[in-house]
């Protein structure tokens, strides 16, 4: 695992976990925002996005294989500001796994969750005014669509999660 250069004296860091059944989708998502994602020894995809000189976001792409869930979560869960559950909208199995992930997160954590349905290059199933900025499912969870390979789309998902966090603070 490469050393991470964290300038904690000068910067504030926000940490977000992107969880989903598909490694490539998580990689595309993080790569859309961060120039050089790193895949660690434990299959965690890491990306750093510098919002400005004072604030950086650390994005962790984590899988949800049941037998490995304890290890990855031990590493990152206590530091996470919010979660993005990323799944393939057009894949039923991916959707079922997203539901399992959502059940796990809502049972274990209070941090805000954005469920992002990835359509990649395919059309959105409904007009954007319906799902933007997001659709609320509960006080903890909201839903939106995204294109994991599109930086503007990925940014909207991250912003909607941060907005949810800020709204909770107020």
């Amino acid at each position, binding site marked *: 695992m490469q050393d991470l250069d964290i300038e904690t004296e000068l910067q504030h860091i926000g940490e977000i976990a992107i969880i989903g059944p598909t490694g490539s989708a998580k990689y595309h998502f993080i790569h859309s925002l961060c120039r050089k994602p790193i895949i660690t020894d434990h299959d965690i995809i890491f990306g750093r996005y510098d919002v400005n000189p004072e604030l950086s976001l650390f994005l962790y792409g984590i899988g949800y294989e049941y037998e490995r869930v304890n290890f990855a979560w031990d590493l990152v*869960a206590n530091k996470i500001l919010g979660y993005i559950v990323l799944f393939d909208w057009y894949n039923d199995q991916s959707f079922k796994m997203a*539901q399992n992930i*959502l059940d796990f997160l809502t049972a*274990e954590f209070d941090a805000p969750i954005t469920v992002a349905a990835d359509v990649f290059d395919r059309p959105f199933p409904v007009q954007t005014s319906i799902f933007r900025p997001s*659709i609320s499912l509960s006080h*903890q969870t909201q839903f939106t669509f995204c294109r994991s390979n599109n930086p503007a789309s990925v940014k909207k998902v991250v912003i909607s999660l941060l907005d949810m966090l800020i709204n909770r603070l107020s």
Partner: protein
Amino acid sequence: MLSYKKPVLKDSIKLDFLRRMFNSDSLSAIFDELQPDQIIEAQRFIWEKTIEFGIKVKGKDFSQDELMERFKPVSAYQMEMKCDYPASKCRGTECFYSDPECAINKAKNQVDVMSKIINELLGFDTE
């Protein structure tokens, strides 16, 4: 982490409802898998989303009154079911516990109406 408080209706089930709405699939189809208190919550959630989508699509022109007119009146439903209880009982949630089959059937009918309305709002073929 916080102590686990079990919600009446899990977010994952609401997500399922949302996916069904956007795929123009039946919403009431999964009611058979839910408990009465979950059906009450599901009905409330679907109603909320119907209003939300109505406002997002039609803005000021969206009328909740027009929406309500599409539901079968309580009196008509009670007559159909040969029910002698006061209408207030049927409008409320009490019957979900005293006569769940009837209450769930009514809920399914109402959700099917909301499903049609959502399909119209989203521009799906309703034939």
